[in-house]
């Protein structure tokens, strides 16, 4: 069955306002936050209830039509890249906060609820929702579950997977079921943990039970300037080595500072080669003691200036520069690639030096903005798309940075996901046996391979087949259910 032939039935399920088939309107959905990958969806549906999602997926399963889920579309790895021959299921109309249970420290929300809305709803009770991706104003909790989103504060507070205790999902066969019971200790396999971060390939989330975190007694934010990123990195190591676990440790290099300064006038210390933003939260005495220790350690590491912010307005001023960094880079470069790689914290200095060498050798500028506390690098690779060959050169530098991450025992993605963008890098990090074993999980949930096909894995596994040398075109590719890169 073609996607167009499904329109009447989809309209029955989602109502006329819940189906988008007009080509001009479909264009809105042709990419997520990674705009370099685009595909016009065959059809877009906007269900309002879990039952509608189940009915939509049931139809797709019956017709053998692939489907892709999308939340707010802020993902940075093309995880929500639509299929031209498939249905895009958008959860943005499912945005009820169903319940807040402060004593149990839980909330139940629909997948289209924005990340920040959960914290806003919990705040009157003294709680917040800890994972805080920088897109938290618009990104959806359903998308966060798919990507196992982190954020600046996951150094101390953990990722989405640490804050989700129950999921209502629609399986790729169209069945509505609960994984976990909200307790965080449900009997049997931890399917909540396995599902979180599966990038939309195991089913579609329709309700989420999240853990709420008590708002800490005190928060303080320090801004320290250094002459070099190496000196800043030494301060990071010293802080961790002293047994201090800040809520966040962020670093920006000179080029990133320059961009942020141009964009938001964040008034970071002039001429700094690197700035560190260190945020501490917790009981007042601990924050006071750790704050003093962090100051001393930064000074020992040669910081040229240090500022502290204890009230929300001052804190916001410090964070403004960091949070604007990605967008700000647009002011100093027409085009840029955002990379997302991870290295062990102890390898930071060495890897930054190697990135600088790569930049110098290629003539491509790289601005570094990163979650230094957990070694999560976000190099911004700048290029001029009007200059022939420069985009390709930038791609090469960006890929070489990932190789550096792998060489140093790190990861090809810390928080943006594999999606469409990085599936080709997976074999550099994992063996064929590793990838084959992961796909057993896929086969358990989605034997037909219809649920967000073509993402994460470079070579789809036909469920039931024995791994080994492959001859000819993969059957999933031949049938158009999967793509190879």
């Amino acid at each position, binding site marked *: 069955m073609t996607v167009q032939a499904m329109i009447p039935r989809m309209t029955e399920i989602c109502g006329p306002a819940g189906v988008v088939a007009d080509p001009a309107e479909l264009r809105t959905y042709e990419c997520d936050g990674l705009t370099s990958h685009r595909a016009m969806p065959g059809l877009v549906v906007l269900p309002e209830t879990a039952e509608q999602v189940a009915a939509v997926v049931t139809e797709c399963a019956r017709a053998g039509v692939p489907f892709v889920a999308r939340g707010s579309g802020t993902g940075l790895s093309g995880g929500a890249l639509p299929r031209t021959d498939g249905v895009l299921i958008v959860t943005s109309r499912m945005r009820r906060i169903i319940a807040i249970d402060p004593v149990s420290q839980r909330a139940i929300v629909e997948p289209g609820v924005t990340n920040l809305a959960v914290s806003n709803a919990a705040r009157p009770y003294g709680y917040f929702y800890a994972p805080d991706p920088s897109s938290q104003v618009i990104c959806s909790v359903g998308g966060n579950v798919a990507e196992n989103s982190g954020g600046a504060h996951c150094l101390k507070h953990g990722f989405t997977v640490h804050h989700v205790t129950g999921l209502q999902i629609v399986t790729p066969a169209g069945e509505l079921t609960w994984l976990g019971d909200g307790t965080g200790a449900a009997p049997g396999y*931890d399917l909540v943990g396995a599902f979180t971060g599966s990038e939309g390939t195991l089913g579609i989330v329709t309700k989420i039970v999240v853990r709420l975190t008590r708002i800490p007694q005190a928060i303080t934010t320090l801004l320290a300037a250094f002459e070099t990123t190496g000196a800043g990195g030494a301060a990071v190591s010293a802080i*961790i080595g002293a047994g201090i676990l800040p809520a966040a440790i962020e670093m920006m290099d000179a080029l990133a500072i320059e961009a942020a300064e141009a964009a938001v006038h964040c008034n970071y210390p002039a001429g700094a080669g690197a700035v560190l933003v260190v945020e501490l939260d917790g009981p007042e005495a601990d924050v006071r003691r750790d704050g003093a220790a962090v100051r001393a350690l930064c000074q020992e590491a040669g910081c040229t200036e240090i500022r502290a912010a204890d009230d929300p307005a001052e804190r916001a001023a410090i964070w403004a520069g960091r949070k604007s960094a990605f967008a700000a880079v647009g002011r100093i470069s027409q085009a840029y690639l955002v990379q997302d790689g991870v290295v062990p914290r102890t390898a930071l200095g060495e890897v930054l030096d190697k990135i600088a060498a790569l930049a110098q050798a290629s003539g491509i500028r790289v601005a570094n903005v990163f979650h230094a506390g957990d070694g999560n690098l976000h190099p911004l690779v700048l290029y001029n798309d009007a200059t022939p060959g420069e985009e390709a050169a930038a791609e090469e530098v960006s890929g070489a940075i990932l190789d550096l991450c792998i060489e140093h025992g790190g990861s090809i993605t810390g928080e943006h996901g594999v999606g469409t963008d990085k599936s080709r890098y997976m074999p550099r990090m994992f063996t064929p046996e590793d990838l084959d074993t992961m796909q057993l999980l896929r086969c358990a949930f989605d034997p037909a391979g219809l649920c967000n096909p073509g993402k994460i894995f470079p070579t789809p596994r036909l469920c039931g087949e024995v791994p080994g040398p492959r001859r000819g075109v993969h059957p999933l590719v031949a049938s158009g259910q999967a793509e190879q890169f």
Partner: protein
Amino acid sequence: MTPVTVPGALARACRAVRPAGPRDTVADVMPEWVAAPASLAEASALLAAATEHGLAVVPRGSGTAVGWGAPPTRCDLLIDTLRLDQVVEHEAGDLVARVQAGVTMAGLAGVLRSAGQQLALDVPPGNGSRGVSPTVGGVLATGAAGPRRLRYGTPRDLVIGITVVRADGTVAKSGGKVVKNVAGYDLGKLYTGSYGTLGLITEAVFRLHPLPAASVFVTAGYAGPDAAARAVAAAGGSDLAPTAIEIDRPGRDGLISVAVLLEGDPDGVAERAAGLRGVLGAGTAVADRPPPWWARLDTADRTVIRIAFWAAALPGVLAAVDSAGRAAGLDPAVGGSAAAGVLHAGLGRDAAPGAVADFLAGLRDGLAGLEPGSAGGAGPPARASAIVLTAPGPVRDRVDLWGPVPALSLMRAVKDQFDPGHLMAPGRLTGGI
């Protein structure tokens, strides 16, 4: 070609193979052979040989929890992981340790302590085998955790990478040695709490935490469940950053003790302890040592039932325990991580199997009837569970150890994919998995 005998095939795969003895039983099931691989290569060869010969396999670490879960429907080969005993990597600056499955929690703690670090999991003292520390592989396979789960989570929250051998000998890993990593599916979560049914865990990478500068325990006693539940909720809802909130009630009519662990800056901990005395009310005591019942899980020859629930339901859960206990003529001891929504109910060997079965059925009915609370009917249909962690044989034979489980058909599908021959710890997990 001479047919290869099973012992011959096992010996070829692994240097340490022996016939099983009476100490090797798994929930009263006697295996035929025991093999102790000393390397990943040996473990892989061993499982490949086992599959080749259709042998059912059960992994065992220190054996402190080998009796947990349902008895295996078959057990031909016991794989002893104690020779996989290397702390492969501890990079203190990264707060990460890579550890083979047979390393004991005590051994690992010793290595980490010298760097001022810890794997922040409580492990109950040995199961009647005093002084025996569980292995990290066993802790992962059972998903066991103690009081500090409130702050640090459970094994699934601290494992960041895992290496496993599938039933057919395939070696696979997921995750890695960096804390922040979303490349590929997170099989560490899937294997944690899988009771050996998906394969053999051979190595894991853990996120570590710094050891706290100071710890104090603030304890108070309450006459009834409602007063105790109010104290637990007040401590949990305070901004005093408790690391753990535990309760202990030796019997239905006894006092309920509530104890709160505070960790951090020494002066700050003292300050917060003073604040907590105000929250917990008159008669609170502050000590730098835990009360004797802290983190204790006495499983020797006892029936231990783990109850998980939404923390707000604590009064209802205690009422369900009491009402089921009265009806069955039993008076279980109850204790555990009240604020995290996990309690254990324990019954001695003198409890008649029929009465234990009645108690369990009554308890499950009571839990199913708990008020849904502020979520109304929109949340998960079941909001609490009672599973039997371990029980003497006669009790085990009378009860459904696992009870109802959400998404059982998906779990079966996972099992069928990872272990199509159902050779890995068959029958140990819920639903015959």
